[in-house]
């Protein structure tokens, strides 16, 4: 709906056109919207152009021009200039209609009837001056002549059309732009746990390989794909450039405050860091490397503004290279997706198998995620980071069967857990079967659960998210120039 609609023959160049333009300019200055409706007089030459001052108003955007076939024009106030010339006009809905008589029509009654047929009986007739008024004796006119009724904006205000400069519109705070953080790698369980605790205005974008992408997507995270060299069919040296280019694209697309790299910072990551130092590059560095492996990555720590190490229950038994590379490292409790601690309510004899195939007479094999672990009666599992800490954190009686080819030192983890009395370590199938038979006894399971509760550890996910958000905030402050 427009604030004001002005209907006239816009080709007319007389004093009424000058008044019309003055009103349009006053309305535009006050922030009011105006639509001009051209109602051509029948006896004028059709090809004659609009008054140039009116053209200027339209060109400068101070008013809009109604289309010939507009059928749904609405305005709060409709002003009709030179109503005697109005023969045909599009329908206009208006709360107030005022016909301004710049000159006295020869047959006022006929003009009045025609106009009121178009616009209803509530039209107010306002003479432009006293001379016009005097030429219309007996006619029902407005109490004051149009120019004498006050400045134009005051006239509109009296009709409820208030200048927008006088009454400022409610200030709507612009939506705070979402900040992004890229989580690069296939450490999806950690990424999910951290992302769940990020502040509302910080959105995680997971950049994963084909292994991790479905899990991240299923968790409701925005995901991007970083193909492995074998999936592209390229050699490692070309893949380095591919990773650099892909990360460049994603950094340009999302403008992240920070990039958290999970896993190892291979050459492609290093190339991307060198090319894009703007976001804060952070490393989610796993601990518990097998002795003698992974040392080549130690020097890459210097690429990062911060290193976050998820806590290890078996940290005291860690013999990997990260135990000696502590510069710039922040350690938090083990990062898991476990819910807040609550009492265990194990169901009827259930056996959870993770990475290991096993059966136990009288037990039903089940699958369970972090949320359901409290109902699991017994578990047999590899000793990878996620399973190890989830099962111990949920106090599930567990037989750990370490994978000798695992990415990290599963054997040390399992042995440490056994030494701490929170689980049983089995290094082959026979040992695992014997351990499961022992744990068929409810008392044995209860003892392990009780011991787990005694040495319980917290969940570092919230702390890790706060650490990440803090780095993003620091980046914002650097951008703002408040930190040097």
């Amino acid at each position, binding site marked *: 709906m427009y604030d004001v609609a002005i209907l006239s023959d816009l080709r007319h160049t007389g004093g009424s056109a000058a008044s019309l333009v003055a009103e349009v300019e006053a309305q535009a200055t006050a922030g009011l919207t105006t639509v001009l409706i051209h109602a051509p007089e029948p006896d004028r030459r059709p090809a004659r152009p609009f008054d140039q001052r009116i053209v200027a108003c339209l060109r400068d955007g101070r008013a809009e021009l109604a289309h010939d076939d507009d059928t749904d024009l609405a305005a709060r106030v409709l002003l009709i200039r030179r109503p005697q010339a109005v023969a045909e006009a599009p329908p206009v809905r208006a709360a107030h209609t005022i016909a301004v008589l710049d000159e006295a029509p020869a047959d006022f009654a006929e003009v009045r009837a025609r106009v009121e047929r178009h616009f209803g009986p509530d039209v107010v007739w306002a003479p432009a001056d006293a001379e016009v008024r005097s030429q219309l004796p007996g006619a029902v006119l407005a109490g004051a002549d149009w120019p004498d009724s006050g400045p134009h904006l005051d006239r509109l205000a009296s009709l409820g059309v208030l200048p927008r400069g006088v009454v400022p519109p409610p200030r709507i705070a612009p*939506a705070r732009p*979402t900040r992004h953080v890229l989580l690069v790698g296939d450490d999806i369980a950690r990424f999910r746990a951290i992302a769940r605790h990020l502040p509302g205005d910080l*959105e995680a974008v997971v950049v994963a390989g*084909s*292994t991790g*992408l*479905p899990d991240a*997507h*299923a968790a409701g995270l*925005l*995901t*991007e*794909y970083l*193909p492995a060299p074998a*999936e*592209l*069919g390229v050699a490692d040296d070309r893949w380095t450039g*591919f990773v650099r*280019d*892909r990360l460049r*694209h994603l950094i340009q*697309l999302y403008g992240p405050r920070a990039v958290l790299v999970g896993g190892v910072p291979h050459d492609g990551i290093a190339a991307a860091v060198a090319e894009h130092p703007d976001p804060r590059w952070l490393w989610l560095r796993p601990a518990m490397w097998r002795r003698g492996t992974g040392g080549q990555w130690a020097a890459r720590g210097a690429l990062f503004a911060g290193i976050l190490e998820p806590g290890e229950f078996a940290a005291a038994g860690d013999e990997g290279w990260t135990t000696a590379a502590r510069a710039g490292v922040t350690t938090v409790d083990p990062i898991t997706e476990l819910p807040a601690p609550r009492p265990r309510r194990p169901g009827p004899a259930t056996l959870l198998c993770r990475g290991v195939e096993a059966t136990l007479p009288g037990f039903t094999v089940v699958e369970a995620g972090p949320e359901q672990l409290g109902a699991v009666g017994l578990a047999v599992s590899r000793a990878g980071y996620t399973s190890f800490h989830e099962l111990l954190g949920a106090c599930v009686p567990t037989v750990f069967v370490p994978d000798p080819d695992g990415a990290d030192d599963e054997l040390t983890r399992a042995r440490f857990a056994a030494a701490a009395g929170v689980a049983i370590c089995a290094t082959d199938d026979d040992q695992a079967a014997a351990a499961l038979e022992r744990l068929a006894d409810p008392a044995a399971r209860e003892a392990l659960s009780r011991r787990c509760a005694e040495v319980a550890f917290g969940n570092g996910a919230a702390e890790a998210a706060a650490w990440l958000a803090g780095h993003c905030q620091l980046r914002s402050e650097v951008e703002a120039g408040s930190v040097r």
Partner: protein
Amino acid sequence: MCDEPDAADLAVARWEVATLTGRLRCVEDERDAAVRDRDRNREIVLALRRSRSYRLGRTLVDLARDPMRTAPAMARHWRRPPAPRSRIRAAEMPARIYVAVGLSRAGAHGLIRALRQRVLVEADHLPVMVTDQPSLRHLQVPGVVLEYLPDPATWSRHEPGSDWETLLAERVAQLCRDHRAAHAVVIDPRDPPTLARLLVTDRRVGSLASA
């Protein structure tokens, strides 16, 4: 008489425009890089021609080409055609981007199979299929490269202020650079092409959407 385009037709049309936009951006980047390369080489050649050693060598060559003043044997030696280059760079298989968004998992699987068959029939390009299926492992086949793009609904949920078509255009441009692709086409999710249609339309630059 033509039917009125429905929402799906318009969506595919928007994707085609975005894909062509992305391809165009890549071509523009390649053109700019080629111009920079040409200018750099021109400067090197000019610098070489201005150098003292070049002018001296040039004089010697001119002298050698004068039969009246140079020994015939030396002239024959210098006139020998240059030995062929020992390292000829193997021509890389050109890639082609297939934007296959909105397909069901079975539809994506069927398209992958058709693309695989297509390059078996004639290995004239490397298909790069852009899918919005997150379970990429289930789609992987030899000879077809997979790329992932968040689907329009996911994108609008996470990035409500940004058009998905803009993302598509930027991604296509990036993928054309990454995979050195010369073509990019859009697959109509309602009617993914079979091998027969891929063979009919494979030499066309444009969309398979309405093929």
